[in-house]
């Protein structure tokens, strides 16, 4: 049976979501594949730059696909966009051949609300990278993460990430986005790339240590991103 036959037999939203998920997985293959290739190379080569550009182009395509579906589903039901993030998360969960024991609880409802307000493409892009990191970091343990966006200030958007970064010591939390020699190819690699990308776009990442009595045991990352128009 080919794709045309499948289309003829299709009915209901199950097939519709199946197609989106399939396309997202293909795009994610481009993202992860090129990031992995990038990690295999020394940092300063031209080839590494090309691989990063390739990875980012698939992140953007993935973001565009999600936004298109948000628009289409939004026409049917005002609450539908949240379902799309579920699809996105499920797509990332398909990466389970790497993270068999990963467990994550991620509250993205406020991110969704924020995205609808500011429409920043880069926030979506970063969010995808962060999701990847969270799944990797959660290996063997349980991680609770709360992500939200704050209103744009002077053309910039803030993505705030907080959670229970257990069992990661506080000392290690602070430097999560920083370049560290000898970290290539490790589970930290993707987050280092994430920090590099934020800085490439003139953004910044600030860390605030855990606060006593806070809802979360871990610290908080305030990721400031230059807003990118469509």
């Amino acid at each position: 049976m080919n794709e045309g036959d499948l289309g003829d037999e299709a009915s209901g939203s199950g097939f519709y979501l199946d197609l989106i998920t399939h396309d997202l997985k293909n795009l994610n293959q481009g993202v992860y594949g090129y990031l992995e290739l990038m990690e295999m190379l020394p940092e300063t080569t031209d080839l590494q730059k090309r691989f990063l550009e390739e990875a980012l182009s698939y992140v953007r395509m993935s973001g565009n696909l999600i936004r298109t579906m948000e628009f289409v589903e939004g026409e049917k039901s005002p609450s539908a966009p949240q379902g799309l993030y579920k699809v996105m998360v499920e797509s990332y969960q398909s990466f389970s051949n790497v993270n068999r024991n990963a467990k994550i609880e991620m509250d993205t409802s406020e991110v969704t609300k924020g995205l609808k307000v500011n429409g920043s493409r880069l926030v979506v892009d970063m969010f995808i990278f962060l999701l990847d990191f969270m799944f990797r970091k959660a290996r063997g343990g349980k991680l609770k993460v709360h992500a939200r966006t704050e209103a744009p200030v002077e053309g910039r958007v803030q993505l705030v990430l907080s959670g229970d970064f257990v069992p990661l010591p506080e000392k290690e939390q602070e430097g999560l986005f920083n370049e560290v020699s000898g970290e290539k190819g490790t589970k930290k690699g993707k987050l280092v790339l994430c920090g590099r990308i934020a800085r490439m776009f003139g953004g910044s990442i600030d860390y605030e240590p855990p606060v006593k009595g806070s809802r979360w045991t871990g610290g908080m990352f305030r990721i400031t991103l230059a807003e990118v128009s469509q």
Partner: protein
Amino acid sequence: MTSVLVVDDEPFIHQLYKDILEFYGYSIAGEAFDGDEAVKLYSELARKPDIIIMDHRMPNKDGVDSTIEILSMDPKARIVFASADSTVRERAMEVGASEFLGKPFQMKDLLESLKKLS
């Protein structure tokens, strides 16, 4: 040098495979963008590829049917099935694929599969 035939309907996936395969010293025996093209190309290649990377959901003919046809021509063909459709894993292995990778997979897993079959 191990040669690989790349079969996938997404041009960007071809580029990704070519980037990693060439980086690791594999040669590209040919490229096909649907199942029909893959079967035709395989039958026409004077020097058969050592390994085929096969997608599933493609126009004209899917990966499972293409695998069946290629293996009927050449039972020794080694096929790494690489699909975003994990429901086809069992069927792919049943019809004779040597390995199955569910997209998105890690490049190191692809390299391991190729090394195993080389």
